[in-house]
């Protein structure tokens, strides 16, 4: 229980789900070494960490930030620009992290000090404005970021797919640089999620929840709420930037669409709400379900769209077109905010009586 910081899943179904997801993620390179399955698994890992860090803000402090993709993007771009300009060395990776992470934390500090003094709504609007300015900046400063095309780069020798660490004839599956990258990402994301679990179950995390429930009262009890909120904002930004860096390492690319776009922000919001706000485990469940659906349900939508078109139905082919995936997500989002505000994890936990 030490590793879970005294906050176990508290529901049998939830525990089983988590074990299945984590086991599947560990075994993916062995069972499904194909490119698509590996990409999906990596995305689940990275988004689980990213969503967990967002949950620290949304679920635990109750402040809506639209700038989370900005921090994610800062991490991605820092790695991409460093490896692009310094060449594929470990020094470049270290330089990218050494620049990107403090930059994200500093920016979060500024935004926090500036806008967390007042209402949640104010924070939401300011982060939206700053994030959109950053998106424009990233796509316009093409000498640095590569503009709309983004930056592709080479990885250090050890992490390249061509590097065979354990040949296939030893255990029946090959371990190459790609597999190693996958496990680095796995360990880093697991560490970040466990770290966040530690944060929310610490006295500091309790104060955050107190601020969420009643800020005035928390202040009256003597807690400097601005300090706590800003601190949480910085931690979330750091984790998001790290997740962004990992994502860049996996994709060997950073661009506005993969790391900064508003669509990603929406995905994160949806994963938090589906998984369950205010429960770190919700991040893992939400990310897994959402990304699996995103990758495999879109194919289903295109089948349905074609079927509707063949049947000559009006309007339906357009609505079911895979590009309109966000339409259904938006509807799902509204429904889940309204009917299941506590998400899947909240539902599962409410189902069991607290055993004493």
């Amino acid at each position, binding site marked *: 229980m030490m590793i879970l910081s005294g906050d176990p899943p508290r529901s049998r179904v939830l525990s089983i789900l988590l074990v299945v997801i984590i086991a599947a993620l560990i075994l993916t390179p062995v069972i499904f070494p194909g490119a698509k399955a590996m990409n999906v698994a990596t995305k689940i890992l990275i988004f689980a960490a990213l969503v967990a860090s967002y949950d620290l803000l949304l679920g635990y402090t109750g402040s*809506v930030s639209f700038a989370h993709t900005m921090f994610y993007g800062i991490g991605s771009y820092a790695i991409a620009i460093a490896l692009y300009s310094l060449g594929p060395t470990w020094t470049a990776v270290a330089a990218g992290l050494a620049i990107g992470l403090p930059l994200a934390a500093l920016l979060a500090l500024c935004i926090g000090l500036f806008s967390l003094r007042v*209402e949640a709504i104010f924070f939401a*609007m300011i982060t939206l404005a700053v994030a959109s*300015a950053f998106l424009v900046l990233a796509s316009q400063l093409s000498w640095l970021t590569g503009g709309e095309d983004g930056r592709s780069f080479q990885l250090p020798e050890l992490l390249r797919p061509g590097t065979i660490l354990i040949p296939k004839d030893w255990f029946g599956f090959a371990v190459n640089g790609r597999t190693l990258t996958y496990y680095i990402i796995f360990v880093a994301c697991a560490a970040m999620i466990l770290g966040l679990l530690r944060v929310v179950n610490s006295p500091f995390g309790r104060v955050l929840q107190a601020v969420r429930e009643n800020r005035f009262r928390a202040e009256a009890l003597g807690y400097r709420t601005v300090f706590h909120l800003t601190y949480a904002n910085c931690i979330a930004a750091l984790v998001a930037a790290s997740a962004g860096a990992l994502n860049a390492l996996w994709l060997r690319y950073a661009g506005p669409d993969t790391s900064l776009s508003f669509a990603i922000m929406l995905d994160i*919001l949806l994963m938090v709400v589906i998984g369950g706000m205010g429960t770190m485990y919700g991040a893992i469940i939400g990310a897994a379900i959402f990304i699996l659906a995103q990758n495999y349900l879109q194919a289903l939508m295109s089948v349905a769209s074609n079927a509707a078109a063949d049947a000559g139905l009006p309007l339906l082919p*357009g609505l079911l077109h895979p590009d309109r995936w966000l*339409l259904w997500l938006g509807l799902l989002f*509204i429904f889940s905010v309204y009917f299941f505000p506590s998400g899947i994890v909240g539902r599962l936990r409410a189902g069991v009586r607290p055993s004493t």
Partner: protein
Amino acid sequence: MTDVAASDALPKPKRDLLPVLLPVMLALAMAPLIGSGSSWVTLTVASFAMGMMIFIMASGLTLVFGLMDVLNFGHGAFIAVGAYIATLVLLPLATWVQADSLMLNLAVLAPAALAAMAVSGALGLVVERVLIFPVYGQHLKQILMTTGGLIVAEQALYALWGPQIIPLPLPTSLRGSFILGDVAISKYRLLAMLVGLAVFFSIQLVLNRTKIGLLIRAGVENREMVEALGYRIRRLFLGVFMTGSALAGLGGIMWALYREQVHASMGNDLTVLVFIVVIIGGLGSIGGCFIGALLVAMVANYGGFLVPKLALVSNILLMVAILMWRPRGLYAVTSR
């Protein structure tokens, strides 16, 4: 402590004119930097016109927030819907739009604007009932619900009209510009200015000279008290919300004609601009919203002329500067 007799006139509220001077001072300060007088006039007129359009879009948002503490992140959807509805009227009647007669042009623009306002107003009714009504008083859920609403609306527009950009040419008689000496003033900008000023003065008139306006202002200041006096503020709020949505639709068609194109992402893009204006002006204040819109447009136009690279972040810089000076915006109306 001074005694005040009941018959004495009420003490006049202190007028705060500093924010009003801000756009004037900004315009004057920019004149020597820009150098040529004619470009300065053109830029100033351009920013005034742009500011008026932004103001039309933002005014509803600020009132809705001031009155009911509801922040509608989906406000941009009304803007986009207004623009799309306008294409429904303007594109089939393209011959009238192309005709070189001011009367014919206005005869097609007016119904287009009315249709845009009617549809976005009606949509406002639906949104208020379906999305906002269930989550009154819960900020977090309001933000999430209305954000979801924005996405659904944008995607529905894509599904119904397709992802391509729809060109929307200006009516013939509104193209080109008046030439006064060596100053060129675009005709459409003049129209935008007139419409914007008309909207501003009608809002001021309604707010300051009618009973409904009195109730709205009282509601902004203290909602519970108005309710306690027996007025159904929820119904009042619904009216304000629908008016705000209709104005956003009007702003949408004006912006679409200004850009001469319609695209579903315009709602999303303009949301950010509108938010900045509302924050600068002070949430809930119409006057602040007016000045904020002017400032944003001026910074965009002058900045774009002087330092084009700066235009990318100029809005944020402006917002930071204003909030350093007055943390609650130019005019802090609500105590919230």
